[in-house]
């Protein structure tokens, strides 16, 4: 076996050098405070009875969804209302009746989505519905169908661009994982036995 080595073989390698000098440049720098928007402000419009489209969305510190109804009234959805709608959507994804994961849904959704679908398709969906994310994983239709939830294709583009711009105004984007990053340390080894 190649990698069972004796001392003399290893002593000639970089391990020995590292043992005598250590790693260089390991200074710990203080963590920098990052100010990245963590949420999304979403406006959803009822375009026909029971049909909804995403009118606009912007990066925001908190996630808020404003619903503009056909009768021109506006309301902010409560957390409870969002939870109920997302739970209904999750059930539809589970039993295969969700338009979001239907390959032919883009046409049928031209007239608008259900409210739950619109929320999931919006930027807010990725945040408050992250627990559903795994049900959408691997689904090629979801990204395409998302676009159908936007009032116009330009809304989708504008929305995407504004989220990108939230990080930096140049085309280069940085600041990812600025804070609250889970540890990757000692990954694995979960199961003892």
């Amino acid at each position, binding site marked *: *076996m*190649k*990698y*069972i*080595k*004796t*001392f003399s073989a*290893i002593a000639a*390698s*970089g*391990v020995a050098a*590292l*043992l005598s000098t*250590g*790693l260089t*440049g*390991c200074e*710990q*720098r203080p*963590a*920098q405070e*990052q100010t990245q928007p963590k949420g999304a402000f979403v406006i959803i419009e009822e375009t026909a009875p029971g049909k909804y489209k995403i009118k606009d969305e912007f990066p925001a510190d908190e996630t808020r969804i404003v619903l503009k109804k056909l009768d021109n009234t506006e309301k902010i959805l409560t957390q409870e209302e969002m939870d109920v709608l997302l739970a209904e959507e999750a059930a539809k994804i589970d039993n295969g009746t969700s338009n979001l994961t239907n390959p032919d849904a883009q046409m049928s959704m031209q007239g608008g989505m259900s409210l739950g679908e619109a929320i999931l398709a919006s930027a807010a969906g*990725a945040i408050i519905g*992250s*627990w559903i*994310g*795994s049900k*959408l*994983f*691997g*689904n*090629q239709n*979801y*990204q395409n169908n998302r676009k159908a939830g936007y009032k116009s294709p330009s809304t989708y583009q504008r929305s995407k661009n504004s*989220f*990108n711009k939230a*990080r*930096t105004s140049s*085309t*280069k*984007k*940085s*600041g*990812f*994982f*600025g804070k609250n*990053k*889970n*540890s*990757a*340390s*000692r*990954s*694995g*080894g*979960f*199961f*003892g*036995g």
Partner: protein
Amino acid sequence: MIQLQQTSPLTTEYLESLGFVWHTDSDATPYVSDQLVILSKAEAEAYYKAGNELYDMFVAAAQYVIDNNLFHEIGIPFNLVELIKESWETDIHWHLYGRFDLAGGVDGSPIKLLEFNADTPTALFETAIVQWALLKQNGMEETAQFNGVYEAILDNFKRLVTLEENVATFEACYEGWKFLFTSVRGNSEEENTVRLLQHIATEAGYITEFAYMDEVEFDENEGIFYNQEQYELWFKLIPWEDIALEEPDLAMILTNIIKNQKAIIFNPPYTLLFQSKGLLKILWDLYPNHPLLLETSFEPLQNTKQVQKPVFGREGESVRILDENITLIEGTEGDYDNHKMVYQTYVELPSDSKKSSYQAGLFFAYESCGVGFRKGGKILNNTSKFVGHLLLDS
């Protein structure tokens, strides 16, 4: 029963001089054991062969997932599927290194695969450097150790350019592509693991630099930048599934960077297929009753003591040991309770006279290249201890 050799511990001053600053756990006990597991050459040889065989099986299982579009089944985030397929297609997305976690192999019990940490393996510093320093400091120079991790990774760095087993042509083939090494800010263990890899890459002959994740700039058309310099090669000790879930914009940008051939990222996106414990179920489907495998299912196993664990989870969180009636025996809290789970047949880990359990961590870089151990309770977590080994012919 595990056989152990007592040694004199390395001083914290010495460990820190190496850059190994995570030597003490939060309860003020040393993270590195002052004992060494005694391993025979035949046992080391068996680990070596097991790793090589398992890797071939993982490649076949990943190909099966791709061919049959089973990404959803094994919990792969949808926004990484394209990236995974893209990286799987060509050799330039070379797998740098990974770590198999194994039960058995040391006290007469058979080697069994627990999982494969293929994306962001740690315990690298301990295995490659610290356990060998223990031998050296204790005057055990004449004793061999199954530990060529440093050299194997160094050779595999060269293969990122030569793309073949032979690394002799590296100098002739290397065109000066710059290699950026990245970890998140504020975690010295991860940072120095990455800096060790940077050190090895520098010795291999690369132009290298280190940057914290929040300092790195990404442009889907131009590539990856730090301080106005472009880096064609990028190593990140950040799990791909975290990129997918926590920074979906970045996942999209990286997909385009790879498609536009502006950078090569290590470990490659497809290593997330290996990392998913859902692949353990696919492996069992493809190689039923294989001696290196434990039966694994997406549903609780019938009449079998088993372990329930999330397809992506870290530090032993959200792991449960269940008895034959699927009743909880022992479990851990964690952030992964809502994740997709797999159920793997329970296997007893080898233990010492104090009933501590030992799990082998077998490093793989083009081939099996070294082993180290972790000791703890039944469920090993981030309070488990690292234990080195020494080879004795018995």
